[in-house]
């Protein structure tokens, strides 16, 4: 994708809900302060399933629905699966920050593109437990609209009267990266002025977690990106969103500008379901950096895919060395999945929301769970506590199962 250099893409609002907090600001504060949200939880599949089991995940705590109902001035009840409710909550926050709630701008030339690796798993699993477990022939009549992967974007369009292109995208752990790229392309092409982008994921159910454990990529303890002794990823639930907006449009209406999206690199490994390839990662990162005009003089905050699996982290460290060469260790490296878990389809958007605040504040949040150096992950990891940084550029990676890669570059806003 080529962005029109005449049409810069600003970020004018962000939203987040995850184990670290119910807002983008709370999420950032927890990440910055090194407060992690991964903990062991017990999952009981009920009387028709096997025994309950305990696993390390990062869950959203507290009531998301009540405050959202109050903010929207209408009841939501049980009308949405958690993955759609989370998407609606973060969209409300981002649109509110951008000053776009009830704005006529949403009626035309505004897109909504969200990414999800899965769909309404909580509702689907409950339906199948009724069907196969309880042998009940009749399932809840709105099971289909609750489960479908486009439920969140439809809910967002209906609640905020957004009438432009609205759809969901899916590419496993890169889903919200592709959503951001797609939203940006609507603006760059001139088709839209605003794109609400991001993702959400809610897959911490007894059955789905067992499916993940089948891959043997899940940690029994906690996520330890780039560390010696790392033993896998931890699933997180939540959502994150950004309002992308043509900079001229944002400036004309006096909107706050939190950063600029200036590079997008998309690639496919065409290689393996679960093993990453060096070539695919290098290709995406190089493309994004070239488009953004990142030079050797730039200090870059690298928000890694950093899942804490032995294979990903080794491959990503090698890719960073391949892209930046002798300068590789000049760039601070963060891996916030160690705090909020892996939000799969929402991971890129959440890390973007955190990363934008990091370059805005000039502080890099620490990698958690680190036990000691791995010689194959020789990077400038931010460890222990938040570190003051010079970087005004954020490079954000996502390398999904199935070999689907997105790298995005954001910059601190300058006129």
């Amino acid at each position, binding site marked *: 994708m080529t962005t029109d250099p005449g049409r810069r893409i600003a970020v004018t609002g962000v939203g987040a809900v995850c184990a670290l907090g119910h807002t983008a600001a709370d999420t950032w504060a927890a990440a910055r302060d090194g407060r992690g949200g991964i903990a062991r939880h017990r999952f009981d599949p009920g009387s028709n399933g096997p025994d309950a089991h305990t696993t390390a995940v990062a869950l959203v705590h507290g009531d998301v629905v009540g405050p959202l109902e109050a903010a929207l001035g*209408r*009841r*939501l*009840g049980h*009308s949405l699966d958690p993955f759609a409710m989370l998407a609606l909550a973060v969209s409300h926050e981002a649109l509110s920050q951008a000053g776009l709630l009830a704005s006529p701008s949403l009626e035309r030339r505004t897109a909504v593109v969200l990414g999800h690796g899965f769909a309404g798993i909580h509702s689907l699993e409950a339906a199948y437990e009724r069907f196969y477990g309880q042998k009940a022939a*009749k399932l*809840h*009549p*709105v099971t289909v609209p609750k489960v479908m992967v486009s439920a969140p974007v439809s809910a967002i369009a209906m609640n905020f009267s957004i009438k432009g292109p609205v759809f969901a995208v899916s590419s496993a752990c890169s889903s919200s990266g592709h959503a951001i790229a797609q939203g940006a392309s609507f603006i760059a092409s001139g088709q839209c002025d605003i794109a609400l982008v991001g993702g959400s994921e809610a897959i911490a159910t007894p059955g789905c977690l067992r499916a993940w454990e089948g891959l043997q990529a899940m940690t029994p303890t906690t996520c330890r990106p780039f560390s010696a002794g790392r033993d896998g990823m931890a699933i997180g639930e939540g959502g994150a969103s950004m309002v992308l907006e043509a900079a001229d449009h944002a400036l004309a209406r006096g909107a706050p500008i939190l950063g600029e999206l200036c590079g997008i690199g998309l690639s496919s490994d065409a290689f393996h379901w679960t093993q990453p390839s060096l070539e695919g990662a290098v290709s995406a990162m190089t493309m994004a950096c070239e488009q953004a005009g990142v030079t050797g003089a730039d200090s870059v905050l690298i928000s890694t895919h950093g899942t804490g699996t032995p294979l990903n982290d080794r491959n990503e460290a090698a890719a960073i060395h391949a892209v930046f060469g002798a300068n590789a260790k000049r760039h601070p490296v963060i891996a916030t999945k160690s705090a909020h878990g892996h939000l799969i389809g929402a991971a890129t958007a959440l890390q973007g929301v955190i990363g934008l605040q990091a370059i805005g504040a000039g502080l890099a949040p620490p990698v958690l769970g680190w036990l000691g150096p791995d010689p194959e992950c020789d990077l400038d990891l931010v460890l222990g506590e938040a570190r003051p940084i010079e970087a005004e550029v954020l490079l954000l990676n996502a390398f999904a199962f199935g070999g689907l890669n997105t790298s995005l570059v954001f910059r601190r806003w300058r006129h």
Partner: protein
Amino acid sequence: MTALCDELINLISDEALVDKDKLTPGATLADTGLDSVDVISITFAVEEKYGVEIADDAFADIANFGQLLSILEAAVEKKAHSPP
């Protein structure tokens, strides 16, 4: 109005996210804000809560909310009075 009616109106309001004030006996379904999917969801919720079965075409000919409520009430009462 019976206690069961009150209970059913609360359930309908919660399930379909409609204002209880609109759920008056003479109101048409359009007046109440209930659509066809709401009616199916309400039926499902009543079946679940009270362990009753309501035919798919039970509401085919209703003219107002009072009739919908009567059908639900009758189904629940029939179950209550049937031998275990």
